């Protein structure tokens, strides 16, 4: 079964073709247009999606030497995300449908992130816990099957990736800053500069929820208090301390969720799952039960959306696209 996956929910225009759960092509255009604004400008994102979407699709088809009428399904992200950005992908998919009659299914973006694991581990046993950590979301789900998710905890304020990006902005990194912070933290070297320590949030009433805005504020105060020159000079140490606090919070909640649910398999997905320190810390704490897709399938991509479509079609769970920018899983 050939599935075309289309993802335009935020600032990545992404298109992929799958043969069942095997990737034939997976192309992502990351919109560099936003970097100079230090964050995603919705109108700009929508314009850029429209400029790229058809050429990217044509390139994916060309790469695989397939014509569009060989596709059996078009899977497109319809929630959650930026309304104007989602609309470009959904309308494009509907245009393909109107021309070819190929069925179109709407896919929840978070379900897409979770389904990325089936691309690298098609045999992964169910149920498992999925920690989705990205620029827009931080949430833990129990996955009983494709289409059967229960949310165990989520961020009450910022997403983890958002915290990376905001702290990055404070420290002078361009948007998005996650990768740059990870690299800068490596420069801190072991041991040196232990004085920067930031708090790891624990929410007493709902222990599986996350909170990152206090951490962001703590970094802000630290940087203001120590001054510009000091902060520039000690940027690697600040980055490491910040990253350790985020990692500790994510790892603690994973351990608590595993304990509470009795489910020892944990899947880490979303853009922040590219972070090697997070991967290492999770494995140290939770051992072999932890797995993650390769980095290119963690950040927004079309293959994960196509994969969710393919998995849903096997379970007869296809549904027409329905725009829901604020949708949840």
């Amino acid at each position, binding site marked *: 079964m050939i599935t075309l996956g289309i993802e335009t929910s935020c600032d990545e225009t992404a298109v992929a073709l799958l043969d069942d759960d095997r990737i034939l092509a997976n192309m992502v255009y990351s919109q560099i247009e936003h970097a100079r604004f230090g964050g995603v400008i919705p109108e700009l994102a929508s314009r850029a999606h429209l400029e790229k979407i058809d050429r990217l699709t044509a390139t994916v088809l060309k790469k695989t030497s397939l014509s569009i009428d060989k596709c059996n399904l078009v899977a497109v992200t319809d929630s959650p995300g930026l309304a104007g950005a989602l*609309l470009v992908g959904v309308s494009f998919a509907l245009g393909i449908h*109107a021309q070819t009659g190929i069925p179109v299914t709407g896919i929840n973006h978070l379900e897409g992130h979770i389904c990325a694991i089936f691309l690298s581990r098609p045999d992964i046993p169910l149920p498992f816990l999925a920690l989705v950590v990205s620029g827009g979301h931080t949430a833990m789900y129990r996955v009983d099957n494709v289409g059967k998710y229960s949310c165990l905890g989520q961020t009450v304020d910022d997403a983890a990736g958002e915290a990376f990006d905001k702290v990055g902005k404070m420290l002078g990194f361009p948007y998005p800053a996650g990768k740059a912070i990870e690299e800068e933290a490596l420069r801190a070297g072991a041991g040196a500069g232990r004085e920067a320590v930031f708090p790891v949030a624990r929410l007493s009433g709902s222990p599986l929820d996350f909170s990152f805005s206090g951490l962001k504020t703590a970094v802000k105060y630290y940087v203001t208090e120590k001054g510009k020159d000091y902060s520039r000079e000690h940027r690697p140490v600040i980055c490491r301390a910040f990253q350790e606090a985020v990692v500790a919070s994510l790892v603690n909640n994973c351990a608590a969720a595993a304990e509470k649910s009795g489910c020892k398999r944990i899947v880490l997905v979303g853009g922040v799952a590219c972070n090697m320190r997070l991967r290492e810390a999770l494995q140290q704490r939770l051992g072999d039960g932890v797995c993650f897709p390769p980095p290119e399938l963690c950040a927004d991509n079309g293959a994960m959306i196509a994969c969710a479509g393919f998995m849903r079609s096997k379970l007869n769970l296809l549904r027409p696209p329905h725009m829901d920018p604020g949708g949840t899983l």
Partner: protein
Amino acid sequence: MNWILGIDTSSVALCVGLFRDGQPIASYSRMLKNSHAEHIAQAVSMLLDNNGVRAGDISHVAIAAGPGSFTGLRIGFAFVKGFCLTGTVRVLPVSSLFVLAHGADSGDRDVIAAIDARRGEIFWARFRRDAEALTRETPDTLGPAPEFRNALTAGDTVITDTMGYAQSTVFNFLADRPNVFPVERYPVQRGFICAAQGASLLTDGSSWKNAADAMPEYLRSFSSPATSKGPLQ
């Protein structure tokens, strides 16, 4: 034989129309606020099915290209880009103001088409009626409301579109003028007019584009700070 599909999603009405060569075949319009994306595929399929036309028969698509609702324009263009992905369909972007101007019964007077662009600004253009056809007198323009007001002369016919903006006040000053047509009261078969324009330009190869090169004319750049809500933080 050429089948020409017309599409206009630039304002609150979702409008499609169909021509076979120079001959009008069908038109369909529906008032739909904020749900063009959900209905566009259905509207096009219905238009084609009812007239025994297969999607693959469409050789040309004429689409209202703006100015107008940014989101609406993108829905139309994204749809057309998907629709034309397979083959050699040619695409004609048509000015939304030109389309709108057809809604006014102007006799032999000039027609000014005007769209509320919000923030006290107006998209507008002036057209002259020669015999049955409208010819353009001024380019599509975005300007402050007073500039538009100054551009009007006593004999002009004006057609206005608030794009469903209930609090629109920029056209209030026209209330006592004769020959003013608010499109809300005098709806225009916009998709049909797009298709008609396509039919009249069929042999003019230079007006038509590949779908990949067809883009909306926003007439307002994204970088003007008030256009966007600022970065998502």
